[in-house]
Structure formats: C-alpha cells, structure tokens
C-alpha cells in the first residue's frame, strides 16, 4: 500500500466502486519514488480545496493496476506516476510523470469546473 493520506484503491472492484460513486475522480498511480511523492503531496493539499473531487491513489507495481496500465489513454506513457482524471466514470484527461500544483489545478478547474 502506498504511504499517503489519500484514499487507496487496491483492486478492480474498489476502483469500479469509486468511479461509480463519484462524479469527479483524480487517481494517481505510482510508486513511493521521487517523481510520484510530489504528486501525492499536491493531491493531498488540494483535497480540502476541491470538495467536488475524489482524490485517490493506486500502487503501480501490482497486478490489479493493470486496469490503469492498459487504459488506451496511457498509451505512450513512459514516466510515473500516471495521473488519471475521470468524469462520470470516463477518462477525461491523463498525464505522465511529475506535475506541478499549477498544472494539476489547471486540469481540475478545466475538467471539473467550480470547486
């Protein structure tokens, strides 16, 4: 399990449940490494500001994370974390590798609108 304060998704059943129960989801799929930890930190900080978004993580090196690694939207991705944004269960945006807080906020504002 990842050492973050985000909601951890550990299997496909839970993944589907989170997507079904939440209109807006930001999911960070990574490891406890240099490029990933800053993105978890950003998600943790934004959790308070974006009450309309469910923030969660998924451990990259698990069989279950195939559900993320095989998304068509991550084809060509070669940098962790894979960060996926969902609206009503559909992927609306995906990014690869480290992102700044400003980059994440821009996506949240564009895809999920007002806080």
């Amino acid at each position: 399990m990842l050492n973050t304060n985000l909601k951890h998704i550990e299997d496909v059943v839970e993944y589907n449940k989170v997507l079904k129960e939440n209109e807006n989801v930001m999911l960070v799929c990574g490891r406890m490494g240099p490029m990933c930890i800053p993105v978890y930190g950003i998600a943790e900080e934004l959790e308070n500001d974006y009450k309309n978004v469910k923030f969660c993580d998924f451990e990259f090196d698990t069989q279950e994370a195939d559900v993320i690694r095989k998304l068509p939207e991550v084809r060509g991705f070669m940098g962790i974390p894979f960060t996926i944004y969902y609206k009503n269960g559909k992927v609306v945006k995906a990014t690869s590798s480290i992102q700044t807080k400003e980059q994440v906020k821009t996506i949240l504002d564009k895809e999920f609108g007002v806080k």
Partner: protein
Amino acid sequence: MSTDNHYDSIIIGAGPAGLTAGIYLARARVKTLIINEGIVGGQIILTHEIANYPGVENISGYQLAMIMKKQAENFGCTIINGKSVKSLELENEVKNVTLSDGSIFTTNSIILSPGGRSRTLGISGEDIFKGKGVSYCATCDGDFFTDKEIVVVGGGNSALEEAVSLTKYAKKVTIVHQLDHFQASQYAIEEAKKNSKVNFIMKSSLSSFKGNESIESVDIKNLETNEITNFKTDGVFVFIGYSPNTEFLKDKVELNRRGEIVVKEDMSTNIEGVYAAGDSITKLYRQITTTVADGTISALSVSNYLEKSRINKN
C-alpha cells in the same frame, strides 16, 4: 504589529537547510516559522536512497525529510506548506513577508533557503514528451526502457552514473555532452567508458525532440560544425545540473551571476538580519551534509543577531 503573524525568525524553504535551521532555532526558543512551496524536504524527496548521510544507513529521501520535519515541529517550529513567498521587504529592522495567498507575516530575521531545481533543456518538444520518453529520473522510469535505445544528456557525475545504471534496462545508452571532456569524477568516467552498452557523442547538444505518442528521435547539433543530425531513440534522460530558486530575491539581496545568494562565513547576506543557507548560496559542493551545516551556521548566527539586537534595545 499582530503578534500572531509576527515571528522572531522566518525561514523560507523547508529542504534540509531550512529544516535544520528550524530545529536549531526552535530548540533555542526562538519563535520560528518555516514557509515552503512544494513538498517538505525539498530535493531530498527526489532521492530514492541516501547512502552518504553519516549515522543513517540507507534511508529514502522521503523518510529522512519526514524525520527532519518531525524534529523541527517537536521543538515548536511552525511550518506552512504549499505556499510560496511572493514578495519581501527586507530593508527595515522588522521585515515583511507576503505569501502567494496574500497573507502577510512580519519578522526580525530571515533565513533564505529556497534551494534549487534540476535544469531542463528548454528545447522544442521537451514539455510535450515529458513522461512520454523524456525523463529526469532513472530509478523511476528506467524500467519503461527495457531493451530500448536511449540518450542521456549531460557530462557530470549524475549523467555518467545514471547512464551506467540505465544499462540494466536499455540495450544501448548514448551520452550526449556539449564539451570534449566530462566534468565528473575519474571513477564515474571510467565506469561509463568500460561499459559496452554506453556510447558517446561529444561536443554536441540536443536541439529538438520528435515523435507522435512518444519520442521517436532527437535532433543533435554538432557544436563545432553546427551540423544537425536526426538520431533515432526511444527515450531521453536529462541530467544537466541545477539552477537556484532565487528569482524572487532579485534586487532584494546580493546574488552572483549564476543567481546564487552571496553569503559571508556566518551565512549573513548583504542585508542586516537576513541570512541564507543550503544549495541556493554560493558554494562548491551541494550535498545534504553541507546543506545541513549551512542551516546550523545560519541558525546560530540568527540567534546571536537576535540576542545582540535585544541587548542593544535594553
């Protein structure tokens, strides 16, 4: 002056320099605030395994940072995270610090420890292909390049060491460096040269990234002839050094031509009551040990400065 927003000392940046200064000051009962943009720990968060910090055998940067943070907070230091310092008024005895969210703090002394960041190439396609072939972390992304051909840009210790470590995955690693020699230790150079998977293109630099879903090739410019050659590759790892995070200090304290803060032996800057520590100051070696030492010196100097100011007033 509101006492809630007034501190004896404000530290800007919670990397190892700022956290160390925080530990020393808070322990000396100096009311201290650390303001940090990004993640507490600074660049050490970017290190998977730290093997050269005395007294601790193999620890991740994240773990070391969390211990330093806990130490500072346990001694009574306040840490504001996720906010950057937008502007500073340093001239008067009481200094003003304005944050990105508009909040204003006042203080009698400041320690500047904003550290630095890895340099990027700044060429066409770099942002588009970040995470799609362009990487700045071999330990994070190396396994995506198993049996692939990659380029490593740079000529210092990091570039050579990471190039060798990437041969665990890649079938061919080409180091592109702008000079005709490396600025690395003899050991790192020999390790790279004796590795049969490592090749070298010297006196050259990358001029653009090309591809569709991910990188397919790069343009490499020969710096002697100016000739540009297209070079097929599956990925590019960039290790070209560092820039100090001192843009917000321009015209506030003395910086050298590389943007590093000029300090004296006691870590004081050219402005009274303003000190600096860590990777953002003028110095030769940027390591956690040297940074922690700077943090210690700056905190002891601030304690001394505050004590002298108090005596002068009485």
